[in-house]
């Protein structure tokens, strides 16, 4: 029951923590995706 939160504060601590991890993932993947997307543009 890790989804049981008694306080808003605990709930936010958890969800914002997950969000921070996601944000790192987003920044890394967008860089690679852009490379894939525009990789052969230089002619």
């Amino acid at each position, binding site marked *: 029951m890790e989804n049981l939160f008694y306080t808003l*504060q605990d709930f*936010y*601590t958890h969800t*914002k*923590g997950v969000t*921070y991890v996601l944000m790192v993932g987003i*920044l890394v993947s967008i*860089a690679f995706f852009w490379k894939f997307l525009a990789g052969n543009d230089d002619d």
Partner: protein
Amino acid sequence: MSDHAATNGRPLLTPFNIVAGIIVVVGLILTVLRFTGGLAATTNLDDYNPWGLWIGFDLLVGVALAAGGYVTSAACYIFGMKRFHSAVRPAVLTGFLGYALVVVALHYDVGRPWRLPYPFIMQQGTTSLLFEVGACVALYLTVLFLECTPVAFEWLGWKKARALAVKMTMVLTIFGVILSTLHQSSLGALFLIAPSKLHPLWYSGYLPVYFFVSSIIAGLSMVIFEGTLSHRAFHDKMDAVHLEERDGVVLGFAKAASLVLAGYFFIKVVGISADNNWHYLGTGYGAWFLVEMIGFVMLPSILYAVGRRDKNIPLIKWTAAWTVLGVIVNRFNVSMIAFNYHLPASDRYFPHWMEIAISVFIVTVGVLIFRWIVTRMPIFYEHPDYQDSH
């Protein structure tokens, strides 16, 4: 290289050096006092006023005025305004030094400075805006450092390292703009947690947006202002391209600053309306708020516009200095003047002279490092080996 690094001929005992030397000596003595006697020995902070000048000026103003780095590099590299290229290096260097000194200043303010990495390595207070500010400032300081490395590599003559660093320019610039957006706005959002302490005219749900937009204004104005000072001090270090592009940079940045100031003015009005705070405008705080809004936002917006239309470079330069002052006033209002507005005068805060002295000391150190670097490294001129490589 040696012909540019002409520092040998400078006399050592100039008035500037003497004043700077005194400030540094006083600063070092006060540093010892701070780390032996605690904040009680050096500041006027108390339990009602936990944040004073070292947060209001060193952190909030420092970060805002160091915004020139991301603003200029974004304009040049992302928006493709190549004519601003010669302004990028001084702006990025100023930004890097600004952020580095903000971090140094924080060591004075927090209780246990060696624990500053704790939020990242011990426990993450993810609901705290300060966590977000800390993470972004740490990352952005790294980005600015990397953005400055080509300068050092050119100076050292490391061609391969320089080529690698230059390759990262785009990624670093985009990353820098993201991080700047986040922490510039989060500095304003720090105060969202205290609606009962910050005067309603300055407290708004839009605080993060206000701080972000005004950081752009601060960045643009700082580039003009700092460029003016550099021109006086380091004219001999500037190459033809830098001098030639200089007026274009001033005019272009004045145009941008005027426009952003106008937008900032409008969203501030919307903020007053959104919280129905009109009636506060008739109070004493209201008068001070109007001074900020009309004197430091509307007026510079108009002056910048006039200066640009008339190609009046001196007017633009004075306006830039005025706008920088306006940003300082705004940050002081939010963090000190309009903060704790509900307390009786006896419980209010006014900085101790030692707090002011430490802040002056840190700014002086920044200027000295800046001078040391620009008299040695290719900041105001392009290194002859890499002239067409951008």
